[in-house]
């Protein structure tokens, strides 16, 4: 009898933990369903092509138009720009830290990189607002420095820590024998590093870049502070609006149920779609790098 009640007790506990385990799955489903259900009406009402490929966003005009091509392109250009600046710096820093730095330097710079990763995005935004934006205005003689360029630079700084950390892990996992073989054949340490270690870690480094893409495309607060936030088609020295900032900048004053708020929901869905693509790519590269 006692044995039986103990068994039931264990079963109940098991079920309890099973529910806790499945909560994450439930949450992902919930978020997906919510975004899809609330995002579809806007796309349907505006029309898929007018929405995705419309070049004009004038949500509060007398005859409103809801084209989000400027936001999509700005997000893509902004991310690309951040990668052009951030990836080389992050990559070479990671290689240096993994293969050439003394352990003391490595520890110090490692701490600095963690610190950069931990700094809140609004602090980056603030520094960008106070240093970068006036700087760009002066250097290029513009009326206002809040621009796509400023956003690209801030994003480049913000993705730097992720790129360094993930590449570093990948480079450190390269088997010592590969490098020894290369050194024994007469290659110098630098050649060994770039011709043997880096190719061996390429999946991990690719994962680092994809992670950076995800960070950059999802960043909202820092970008809203330095990009000026006008819904223009992207141009380096103009005020622009990203997908993320398009969601947040009108959310506070859109009336519930209006076409404007439906359109904002649809923008969130488009952003989510991009993120899912990036996540899939990230998983692909991470899996490949684990398999060696």
């Amino acid at each position, binding site marked *: 009898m006692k044995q039986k009640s*103990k068994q039931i007790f264990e079963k109940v506990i098991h079920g309890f933990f099973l529910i806790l385990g499945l909560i994450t799955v439930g949450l992902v489903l919930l978020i997906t369903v*919510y975004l899809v259900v609330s995002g579809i009406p806007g796309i349907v009402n505006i029309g898929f092509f007018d929405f995705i490929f419309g070049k004009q966003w004038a949500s509060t005009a007398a005859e409103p138009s809801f084209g989000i091509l400027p936001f999509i392109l700005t997000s893509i250009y902004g991310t690309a720009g951040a990668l052009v600046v951030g990836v080389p710096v992050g990559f070479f820093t990671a290689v240096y830290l993994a293969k050439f730095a003394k352990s003391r330097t490595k520890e110090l710079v490692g701490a600095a990189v963690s610190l950069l990763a931990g700094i809140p*995005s609004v602090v980056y935004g603030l520094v960008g607002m106070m240093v970068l934006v006036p700087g760009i205005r002066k250097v290029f003689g513009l009326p206002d420095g809040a621009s796509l360029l400023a956003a690209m630079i801030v994003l480049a700084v913000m993705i730097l820590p992720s790129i360094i950390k993930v590449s570093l892990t990948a480079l450190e996992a390269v088997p010592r024998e590969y490098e020894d073989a290369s050194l024994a054949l007469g290659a*110098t340490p630098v050649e060994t590093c770039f011709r043997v270690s880096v190719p061996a870690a390429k999946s991990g480094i690719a994962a680092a870049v994809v992670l950076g893409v995800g960070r950059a495309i999802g960043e909202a607060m820092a970008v809203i502070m330095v990009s000026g936030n006008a819904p223009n088609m992207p141009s380096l020295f103009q005020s622009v609006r990203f997908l993320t900032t398009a969601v947040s900048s009108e959310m506070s004053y859109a009336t519930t149920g209006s076409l404007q708020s439906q359109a904002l929901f649809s923008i969130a869905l488009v952003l989510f779609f991009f993120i899912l693509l990036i996540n899939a790519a990230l998983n692909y590269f991470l899996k490949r790098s684990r398999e060696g």
Partner: protein
Amino acid sequence: MDKPLSKRRRAYIALMRALMTLSFLITAALAVFMVAYVLAKGLPSITWELLSTKPSYLEDRIGILPDILNTIYIVIATLAVVLPLGVGAAIYLTEYARNKRVVAMIEYAAETLSGIPSIIYGFVGMLFFCTYFGLGTSIMAGALTLVIMNLPTVMRTTQESLKTVPQSYREGAFGLGAGRWRVIRTVVLPGCVDGIITGCILSVGRILGESAALLYTAGFAHVLHGFFEGLGSAGATLTVAMYVYAKEDGEFQVAFAIASILMLLTVLVNLSATLVAKYYKKRRNI
């Protein structure tokens, strides 16, 4: 015997070395610049009055005490919910789950969650907790949104430390006739304390730095409240307050003061994470 390297090879090596040094210096300089600039701009503006009062239009004064309290409330509320959920999920994955498919599904879900940007969390949190559940714009709604964001972190750190609890400990306890729950309670849980602490520290770091997910869930009011009253009302955390002061109000001095506090807290969080890891690593080796 040693033939000098060809010109091309020497040029290649020099170029790569130069690029590495340059990048390394840029990274180091960025970190130093961020810390030095923010602290230099912000620390001088931190006064006792700023820290200990609430904003008042009558006296033309800005105080951040409500924001400090809100931050503490939201940290407590988030951790109180996310810890049981995250630790429980990790225990399920390492101690109970036998079906590989279920494990893969849960892990994939956790990875997906950690890849979703915070603005999307804020958006879903607003629709779900504020509107659907009728919590309104409140600290509680913000905390629940942050729970979803931090769940993968707590899960992962706990899971990693659970994996380091030797299988023989569990087998020993089973051999003595303990049931699975008893083994978890007396053997497994004490063994993963470091993972739980690390998860806590990382979550606190993320909560401190979060703004996009909180702006439309917890709002940006600066009103003094007690804990339970505070949970039900709107309130800005330090980070959100910094954003509002800088972007909407143009109060850059206050913004820098808050930014320097956040910077110090970030340093503290990173430091304690490192120390905890070191402490437990040492204890494990003995």
